């Protein structure tokens, strides 16, 4: 076991982890943050996307111990004082979800894309979300939502 300290959604969490524990399971099973979904478990689908020091990563392909000393933001950490994050609000308004399974990962990938200034056009958004799969094929409204959120936060 190894002692780590990870700041998750602004709160410092001290944990004893086995080195082989994947970040997504640390979040879901150790910290009960089950908003982050496990989809393919092979770093393809993006359902487990969270922010690591502000950048999107697939948490099924990061070891918990690799996040020692880092800041993690999950879908639970976006809303502030009861108000949805602009990307969450845009997903709501544009009906950018069907079954909802990919949604937390899509939202986190979109937040990273917008914050890095790479959501400036529909083409850029489509390419920027290449790491996230929606098996309902609801991409059109997702892209609309990200564009709407990007224009609000720009």
């Amino acid at each position, binding site marked *: 076991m*190894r002692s780590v300290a990870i700041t998750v959604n602004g709160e410092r969490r001290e944990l004893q982890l086995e080195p*082989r524990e994947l970040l997504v399971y640390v979040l879901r099973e150790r910290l009960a943050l089950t908003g982050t979904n496990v989809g393919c478990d092979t770093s393809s689908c*993006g359902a487990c996307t969270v922010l690591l020091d502000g*950048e*999107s990563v697939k948490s099924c392909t990061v*070891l918990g111990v*690799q996040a020692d000393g880092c800041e993690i933001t999950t879908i639970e950490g976006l809303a502030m004082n009861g108000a949805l994050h602009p990307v969450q609000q845009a997903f709501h308004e544009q009906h950018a979800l069907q079954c909802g399974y990919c949604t937390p990962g899509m939202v986190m990938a979109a937040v990273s894309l917008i914050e890095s200034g*790479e959501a400036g056009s529909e083409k850029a958004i489509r390419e920027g979300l*290449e*790491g996230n799969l929606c098996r309902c094929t609801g991409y059109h409204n997702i892209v609309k939502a990200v564009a709407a959120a990007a224009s609000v936060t720009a």
Partner: protein
Amino acid sequence: MIPAAFDYEVATSADHALSLLGSDPDAKLIAGGHSLIPALKLRVARPSKLVDIGRLGELAYVRDAGDKLAIGALTRYKALRDDALLQEHCPIVSTTAGLVGDPQVRHRGTIGGSLAHGDPASDLPAVMLALGAELVIRGGVGERIVPATQFFTGVFQTAIGPGEMLTEIRVPKLTGATGWSYVKLSRRAQDWATVAVAALVHRDNGGLAAASIALTNMGATPLRATAVEDALTAGAKPTEAAEHMADGTDPPSDVAASAEFRAHLARVVGKRAIEEALSR
């Protein structure tokens, strides 16, 4: 999928990493982990110990080194894509780095990790081969420099020996006389290349003086398409030269494509790469 148990140490310097690596013959280095962690989860890799070099800032850089650029092995794909020196002097590297995987992968994966993993389906190995890059390998007794032509030795196999680590990659600065292209074909945007072709064409007095063409996922290692290079240098048109793109290759058959289809794709993609390189 959960990896088998392993010990874990965080290296605080390159020398520290080498000392940790030397203390355990079954230890492996981990950088971004985007090749190794999937292998750990499938349990096709079962190291006794991981030595984490992912935070060694001393090995994350792109530096001007005269007629070359020196790239630290721990430079991540996104940093390569956005690097001003690479964009100006060796844009085939920055552009190709932006085509690897997807944003999440590019936030974590490193050039050194990709090259050391030796996956013939990865993008940067063929680019390094086409560029004639030099790879700096550090071991207990010092450094040695291995040319890209001798670095890739088989599927997931490289010239890096036990107790050694790749620390730096040196690529030539390209001038306006050199056109470049990397064309990649894959079934889904984020997939590994089914086939890809890296092309560099060196112009002289308005004509083509030399060409350097390398293939991704057409054999156990990235391969130079020497028959194509010779044909181009002898004055063949891109369409004619590209007919030789699969000569001497041994492409795999898998769910993405049969070997025969890959050979066909190599000719199609290769022609596009040559034409794009000639236009730049």
